[in-house]
């Protein structure tokens, strides 16, 4: 279990306890993304290993750090899980089953059950656009392209530990493109969400628009990049 956390001391303890109750026996690693509060202490107290970043890198940076941790220590599977309690621990076995069934990566969708996850008009349109672009460029329909709840198998861990996209939002969408382009199979499973247990939601309107625009630039760049087997991707291996 990989849990990126930035200033989540309030919600993290309950999240960790709940996870332990449902998926006992899994190693839990909290990547403390330069938090200013007691996130690292709370994580340690609730039995998680803590990887502490010296300053805030954003979710993407925290996840990449966690993936490098998993790669270096030979983990076969990684589940990325939110610290704020929005993700339901019952989703974890669902994701892992998808990996066992042969997928290289599994994405938990908030929308597969209608009416489960409500978003504003602006965000809904932006997500609709992303849905179409990603569907077109990967040839696969994802109902939820920006879900943070995902599981990775070993080959994908090794691939993404090298150059997981670190910019906000890109870390979820671009990964779908990167992983399908590299020839791995992604499964989408239904994982209902819950309301936030604490912490601030990470979106302000204008900021969100700018971020989606920036994300589009990133996606276009990603689409136009050379296919695997080209000079650059060989260098990475």
């Amino acid at each position, binding site marked *: 279990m990989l849990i990126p956390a930035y200033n989540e001391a309030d919600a993290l303890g309950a999240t960790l306890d709940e996870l332990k109750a449902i998926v006992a026996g899994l190693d839990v690693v909290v990547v403390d993304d330069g938090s200013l509060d007691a996130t690292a202490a709370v994580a340690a107290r609730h039995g998680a290993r803590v990887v502490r970043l010296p300053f805030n890198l954003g979710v993407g*940076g925290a996840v990449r750090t966690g993936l490098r941790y998993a790669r270096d220590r030979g983990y076969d599977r990684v589940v990325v899980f939110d610290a704020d309690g929005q993700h339901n621990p019952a989703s974890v076995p669902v994701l892992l089953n998808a990996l066992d069934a042969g997928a290289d990566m599994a994405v938990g969708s908030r929308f597969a059950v209608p009416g489960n996850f409500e978003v504003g008009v602006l965000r809904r349109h932006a997500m609709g656009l992303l849905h179409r672009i990603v569907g077109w460029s990967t040839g696969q329909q994802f109902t939820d392209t920006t879900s943070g709840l995902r599981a990775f198998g070993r080959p994908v861990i090794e691939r993404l530990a090298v150059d997981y996209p670190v910019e906000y939002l890109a870390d979820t969408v671009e990964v779908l493109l990167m992983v399908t382009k590299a020839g791995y199979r992604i499964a989408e499973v239904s994982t209902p969400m819950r309301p936030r247990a604490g912490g601030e939601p990470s979106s302000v309107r204008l900021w969100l628009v700018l971020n989606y625009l920036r994300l589009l630039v990133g996606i276009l760049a990603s689409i136009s990049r050379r296919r695997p087997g080209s000079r650059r991707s060989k260098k990475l291996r």
Partner: protein
Amino acid sequence: MTRLNVLALVLGAGAIVHILRLVRLHQLRSKYALLWLSIAVLLVPLAVAPGLLDRFSDLLGIDYAPSALFLAALAFLFFVVVHFSWELSRLEAKVRALAEEIALLRAQREDSR
């Protein structure tokens, strides 16, 4: 020489002196020093002999000589700024990688205790 020529000459010379000073204090990488010095060196003759600019703009087919200067300056500054954005992105990526490395090493050290 007009007063304007003198002013331009002083500014150009001042720029050269300032850049050389920064290099001597190890506060400016020599590649940037070379960049800015070449600009200053190009500007000094223009200050002394403004006729050069007229001939240059004639060559390019520009009627109003000062606009040739603006065009050159804009193009140059544009490339410099793009170059800086590029370099800044590279530096940020390196700093991120270092931060991650530190976090991982720190976790390793705590494990081995």
